[in-house]
C-alpha cells in the first residue's frame, strides 16, 4: 500500500504552546479517523497537512511530495482537498460558482471544470440548489457545499475537519457512504468528535492527545479496548475514553 501521508517528528508551536509534539504518522489509502479532545491538536495537524502552516520541526511527505518546496507544494495542492472546521464562503456566489471557483484555483484542466463541478455538487445532493446563492442556504447545506469544493478535483488526499457538523442524520449516512467510496482510491483523513462517524466510515483511527498519538488501530480494536470500561454510551466511546484515560495517566 502506498504511503500518502508520511509525517516524522512533526512539531507545531504557537508562541510558547506546543500543539504537536514530535508526532509520527504514516497513512495510506482509506478513511483515517482522527479523534481527540478539544485542543488535542487535530485541527493543527490537518492545517499542517493541508500546507496552510509549515511545520516548526519534523519531516513531512505528502503524496510523495515535500511541501516545503514551492514546486512540489504546488503539485501536491492540485491533488489535495480540504474542508476547514469553520468554512468561510462568499455569500453572493451561487453553489456552482463557489465550487467552480475552487476547481479553477486547484488548476483543474479547463475542459474538466464544468463536469467536475456538476459531479461534486450532485455527490453532496445539492444539484437542485446549484444556482442558489450561498447566503440563502442552511448551515447543513453550506457544509455540503464545503465538502463539494473539497472533492471537486477528486483529490488523492482529502482532509476533512468536522465534516458532519450540522448535517442531518440522513445526510450523515449519505456522507459516510461518500467517504467510503472516496477512500477506496484516496487517503481521507477525517477529524471528528462523533465516534459514530468513525465506526461507520473509517478503516483506521488515531486518538490524538496533547499533540501526540495516544492510540492507533482499527475502529474494532478501539472498541475492544473499551470492553469493561464504564465511561461512554457506546462501545466505541468506551474505547475512546479508555485510550484517553491511558494516555493521561
Amino acid at each position, binding site marked *: 500500500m502506498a504511503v500518502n501521508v508520511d509525517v516524522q517528528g512533526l512539531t507545531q508551536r504557537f508562541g510558547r504552546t506546543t500543539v504537536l509534539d514530535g508526532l509520527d504518522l504514516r497513512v495510506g489509502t482509506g478513511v483515517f479517523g482522527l479523534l481527540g479532545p478539544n485542543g488535542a491538536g487535530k485541527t493543527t495537524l490537518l492545517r499542517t497537512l493541508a500546507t496552510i502552516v509549515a511545520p516548526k520541526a519534523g519531516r513531512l511527505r505528502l503524496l510523495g511530495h515535500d511541501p516545503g518546496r514551492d514546486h512540489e507544494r504546488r503539485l501536491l495542492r492540485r491533488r489535495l482537498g480540504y474542508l476547514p472546521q469553520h468554512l468561510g464562503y462568499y*455569500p453572493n456566489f451561487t453553489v456552482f460558482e463557489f465550487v467552480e471557483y475552487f476547481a479553477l484555483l486547484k488548476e483543474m484542466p479547463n475542459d474538466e471544470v464544468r463536469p467536475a463541478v456538476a459531479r461534486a455538487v450532485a455527490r453532496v445532493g445539492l444539484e437542485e440548489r446549484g444556482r442558489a446563492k450561498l447566503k440563502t442556504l442552511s448551515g447543513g447545506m453550506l457544509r455540503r457545499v464545503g465538502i463539494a469544493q473539497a472533492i471537486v478535483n477528486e483529490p488523492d488526499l482529502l482532509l476533512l475537519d468536522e465534516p458532519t457538523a450540522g448535517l442531518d442524520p440522513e445526510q450523515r449516512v449519505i456522507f459516510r457512504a461518500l467517504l467510503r467510496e472516496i477512500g477506496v482510491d484516496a487517503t481521507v483523513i477525517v477529524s471528528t468528535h462523533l465516534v459514530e462517524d468513525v465506526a461507520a466510515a473509517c478503516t483506521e483511527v488515531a486518538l490524538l492527545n496533547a499533540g501526540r498519538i495516544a492510540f492507533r488501530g482499527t475502529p474494532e480494536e478501539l472498541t475492544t479496548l473499551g470492553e469493561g470500561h464504564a465511561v461512554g454510551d457506546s462501545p466505541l466511546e468506551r474505547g475512546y475514553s479508555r485510550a484517553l484515560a491511558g494516555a493521561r495517566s
Partner: protein
Amino acid sequence: MRLVWLFLRSRLAGPALAGIALTALLAVAWERWFGHEPEAMTAAMILFPLVVACVIGTGAHSAFGETELTASLSLPLLRGVYLAGLIAVGALALLLAALAWTLPDDGGTLARNLAGLSGLALLAAPVVGGRLSWIVPVTLAMAAQLLAISDLPSWLALTWPQASFDNDRALALALGLLGSGLAAVHVFGPKVARDEAAG
C-alpha cells in the same frame, strides 16, 4: 460596568478612540501646514469630520452578528449610547483641535459637519452594514467639495457641509441627519451578515 466594558471591547472602542485622537492631531498639524491657504482650511472643515464620521459609522458594526438579536438586555440601547458617546468624543476632539485654528466659527462648523456626516453613515449602516457605511458620507463630502471649488449649481442637500455655521437650514439638516441616523440604527440595527467575522 463589566458588561459595558466588554461591550466596548467587542466594538473595538479603543482603536476607534485612537483613530479619533489621531484625526484631531492631524487637524492641528493641517493648520500648521496649510493654514495660509483658505481653500485648504475650507476643505479641512469637511475632511476631518468626515474621517471621524467614518470611524463612527464603522463603530455601528454588529460584532456578534445574529447573536446580538437574541440578547435579553437591550443591546440597541447600549449601541445607541455608544455611538452617541463616540460622536460626542469626536466633536470634543475636533473642537479641541480647532482651538489651534484661527478662522472664525471653526468649532461650530466642524461639529455640525461631524453631526451630519455621522448621521449619513448611520443611515447607511442598516442598508449596507456598519463596515461599509462610509460610502455615503465619503461620496457626499467629495460632491460638496467639488461644488465648493467649481461653478456647479449648488443644492443645500449636497452643499450643507460647505455652508457657514450661521446657516440655520444647513444646521437643521445636519442635526436632522444625525437624529435620523441614530434612530435608524436603533430601530433597524446595522445590517448583519451571518457569516461575517467580528473586527
